[in-house]
């Protein structure tokens, strides 16, 4: 999930130097750390390699002309460099990370241990099938869980992330239309205004056009608008709908939407980013969905890793299953087989999206998570996630402005209506940083003014939730009074507000040696 930044870019007011200036540039436990190119030296290396024989080469003269000028670090320098940098990051292991639509839940360490078993981490994607039967069995077992949890008959395992899963589903739809001979005429994809940015971007990547559907006053699809858009048309390819939606609400008319889109000859793509709210309680297959990606890095807790790697297996209905991408695992009497190339079983496949077979390292972690929870535990995951979000919504509803009335699913959405003139959502976010929290998702979804989307997940205790709500209550009170302290926040973070405007106007995208050093090197 991406965070929107439609609010103002951060362009800080200069406040002068900070109160606590030290000679070292460090502050207590927080160590100053320069770029590795400034810390290391050009001829330094932290790896001891065997000597070279200087034998005759077979390069045919295709050799690098300019020596690679990159600083190296010894191991102690490297370890210290990254440990110091790590301490400038917020993380789930440190505290509540209520980033709505991102499902920042605890990442069990067992899963890390399992993914590092040599039998998974140290096998090559092109080994003969007979030497990787355990790996194929793991993919097959995970696929079975995903199909059962979603009530869908097929799953494509290769997509590398959520947006890549969207691409997979939409390419399957494209192929189905092509087989029907209707690809040229069915170009339009309906996308609600509240959708993730990846939805319209994916539709365009697949060569479709995007038509936006309005949201109604309840934060759901405006059925009147949808019906209007479907009237007397034969150009609909699909609808891309998130459920539960990005307002944190279950789409009450979802079955009617599925029926309408199917009657119009289109397919129903469901963005599964918010599956955590319903896993074990509702199966998308019972709602009329044709394709849905599952972010293993959300619902099934594979670590977000500072922005990936993710994994986005995509479940498919009977209507789309024949078009699933290559490769896929097939059960045969002789064992498990990997179908990698065009053949009879794959004659309708839309093709290959990636090199090799998918995010195996993520598959291991996700399966470890599923086995740990079991069917019963996964249902409890959804219920606790929804309970936690409703608890936050109720505790904050008198001090902030809930965007919609009624219960929410796994995330609580507020607008900025309660804030005083001059105070924006971004200021509340930065004030949370000073209190030791990662902010909520801000300015998303777009259908709510100054949106604040809070997703606690099920791995927070009541005590943590209460502490967060106490903090949020205080910040909200300051925001409604228009308190100045919000505008300079954060002051307790490793850096103050950063000048994003300057970064974009004059992009500096890599380190370059100081001029005199560069001349010396020549």
């Amino acid at each position, binding site marked *: 999930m991406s965070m929107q930044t439609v609010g103002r870019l951060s362009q800080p007011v200069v406040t002068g130097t900070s109160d606590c200036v030290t000679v070292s540039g460090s502050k207590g436990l927080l160590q100053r750390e320069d770029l590795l190119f400034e810390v290391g030296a050009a001829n330094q290396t932290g790896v001891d390699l065997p000597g070279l024989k200087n034998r005759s080469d077979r390069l045919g003269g295709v050799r*690098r002309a300019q020596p690679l000028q990159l600083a190296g670090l010894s191991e102690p320098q490297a370890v210290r460099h990254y440990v110091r940098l790590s301490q400038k990051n917020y993380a789930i292991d440190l505290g509540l990370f209520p980033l709505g639509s991102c499902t920042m839940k605890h990442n069990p360490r067992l899963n890390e241990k399992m993914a590092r078993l040599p039998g998974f981490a140290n096998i090559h994607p092109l080994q003969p099938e007979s030497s990787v039967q355990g790996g194929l069995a793991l993919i097959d077992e995970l696929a079975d869980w995903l199909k059962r949890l979603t009530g869908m008959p097929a799953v494509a395992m290769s997509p590398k992330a959520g947006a890549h899963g969207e691409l997979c589903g939409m390419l399957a739809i494209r192929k189905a239309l092509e087989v029907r001979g209707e690809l040229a005429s069915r170009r339009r994809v309906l996308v609600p205004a509240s959708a993730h940015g990846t939805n319209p971007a994916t539709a365009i990547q697949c060569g479709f056009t995007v038509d936006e559907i309005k949201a109604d006053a309840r934060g759901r699809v405006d059925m009147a608008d949808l019906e209007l858009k479907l009237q007397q048309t034969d150009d609909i390819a699909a609808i891309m709908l998130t459920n539960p939606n990005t307002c944190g609400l279950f789409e009450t008319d979802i079955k009617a939407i599925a029926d309408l889109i199917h009657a119009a000859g289109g397919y129903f793509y469901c963005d599964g980013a918010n599956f955590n709210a319903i896993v074990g309680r509702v199966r998308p297959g019972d709602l009329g969905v044709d394709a849905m990606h599952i972010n293993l890095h959300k619902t099934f807790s594979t670590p977000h890793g500072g922005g*990936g790697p993710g994994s986005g297996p995509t479940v498919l209905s009977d209507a789309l299953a024949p078009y699933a991408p290559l490769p896929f695992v097939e059960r045969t009497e002789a064992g498990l087989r990997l179908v990698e190339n065009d053949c009879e079983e794959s004659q309708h496949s839309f093709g290959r999206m990636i090199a090799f077979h998918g995010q195996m390292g993520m598959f291991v972690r996700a399966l470890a998570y599923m086995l740990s929870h079991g069917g019963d535990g996964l249902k409890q995951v959804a219920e606790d996630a929804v309970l936690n979000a409703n608890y936050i919504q109720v505790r904050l509803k008198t001090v902030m402005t809930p965007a919609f009335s009624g219960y929410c699913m796994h995330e609580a959405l507020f607008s900025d209506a309660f804030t005083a003139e001059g105070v924006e959502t971004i200021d509340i976010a930065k004030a949370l940083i000073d209190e030791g929290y990662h902010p909520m998702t801000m300015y998303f979804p777009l259908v709510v003014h100054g949106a604040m989307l809070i997703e606690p997940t099920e791995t927070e205790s009541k005590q943590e939730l209460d502490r967060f709500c106490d903090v949020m209550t205080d910040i909200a009170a300051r925001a409604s009074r228009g308190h100045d302290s919000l505008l300079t926040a954060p002051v307790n973070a490793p850096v103050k507000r950063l000048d994003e405007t300057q970064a974009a106007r004059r992009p500096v995208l890599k380190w370059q040696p100081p001029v005199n050093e560069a001349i010396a090197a020549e």
Partner: protein
Amino acid sequence: MRYLPLTDQDRRQMLATIGAASIDDFYEDVPVSARLSGAIEGLPSHQGELAVERHLSGLASRNRTADDGPFFLGGGAYRHHVPASVDMIIQRSEFLTTYTPYQPEIAQGTLQTLFEFQTQVAAMTAMDVANASMYDGSTACAEAAVMACRVTRRKKVIMSGGVHPHYAAATRLLCEAQGIEVIQLPPAIDGELDLIESVNDDTACVIGQSPNFFGTITDLSPVSEAAHANKALMVSVFTEAVSLGLVTPPGEMGADIAVGEGQSIGGALNYGGPYVGLFACKDKLVRQMPGRLCGETVDADGQRGFVLTLSTREQHIRRDKATSNICTNSGLCALAFTAHMSLLGGVGLEHLARLNHEVACDLADALGAIEGVEILTPRFFNEFAYRIPKSAGPVLEKLLAKGVVAGVQACRLLPGQGLDDVMITSATECNTPDDIAAYAAALKECLS
């Protein structure tokens, strides 16, 4: 359940605070017919760590790992030694369990490492600027092709017959969905320069690879010149990032866009993923790039800091007008890459690359001495193709039975192209002289 902190008492109290009778109240919007009445069929109940570990270890033990005997498989994923400190660094909670750095004040750790990653990738590829990573090399290649079409406003892509077949497939798929024509030249061991003849004034880009799928290294400069003479872009691909320490890098060959796989540096084999896509280009193309970019700036006190920048290219701002739909990238693998690279440094990477090349030359000498073996790759880095007088697939199985993973048969990735007798094999610093001797002896037996 060990991952769920709420107690039953908490749950009751919270429901009371909310004013809900039961958890079912929250699911009232779900259509009645879609409400599950009981447990989902066929799923086991929760289990302790020990039971889960036992089950997964059982599956893992059924796989032959790269350390279980002589191992010479490449083909786009390479077995290299990763220093122990790299895995310790990426398992730091603050890197492992954080999100995309959208709140820069509390994400300077991730942002600074991304800035360092971009600097390293730009230097290694000899390009002006690199992004903060892609999913993998194949998707980076596909994105490069569609980016070239955006830049040139043309709709034809030409690929050499040496581009990794999976990269070619991923590129064709994305291009064809967007109405872009892709012409791929027939598989050729040493055919990168054939691109020169194919480029004309409606070509958006030519895509060449060095080292290519068959291991051949080629100075692509003449291809770049031909492309530029037709106002087309040159996209240079690599699947083995260690080669950048020794072999002519894309920027020295006139490439406009360089894409490749970074798994070799800091990454495990992982049965194919997760890996890390590298993407670099010329300065003037930066605003058409896909993926995230980290840039330097200052904070309110004038201190140096880093932020994600030029986001107006991206889907979360531009939606249907974005340069790509990419959102998540490969952050933690990029961190592993940059940590490993910082340990190597420029001199270390060059040494490692030369070591790889020497081991591969020793392997080529040993295999080339076997009767019936013909080394096909004229110039190589750490991978080459050879022909045997038999079908390669069954020979690979026989070699496996003798404990040697010898490579991949070319026809596994290029079926129906008359390459049944061609093997592709790779050697790295992990291969010992004993491994090479065992491989040569086993192959000799299989061929006699």
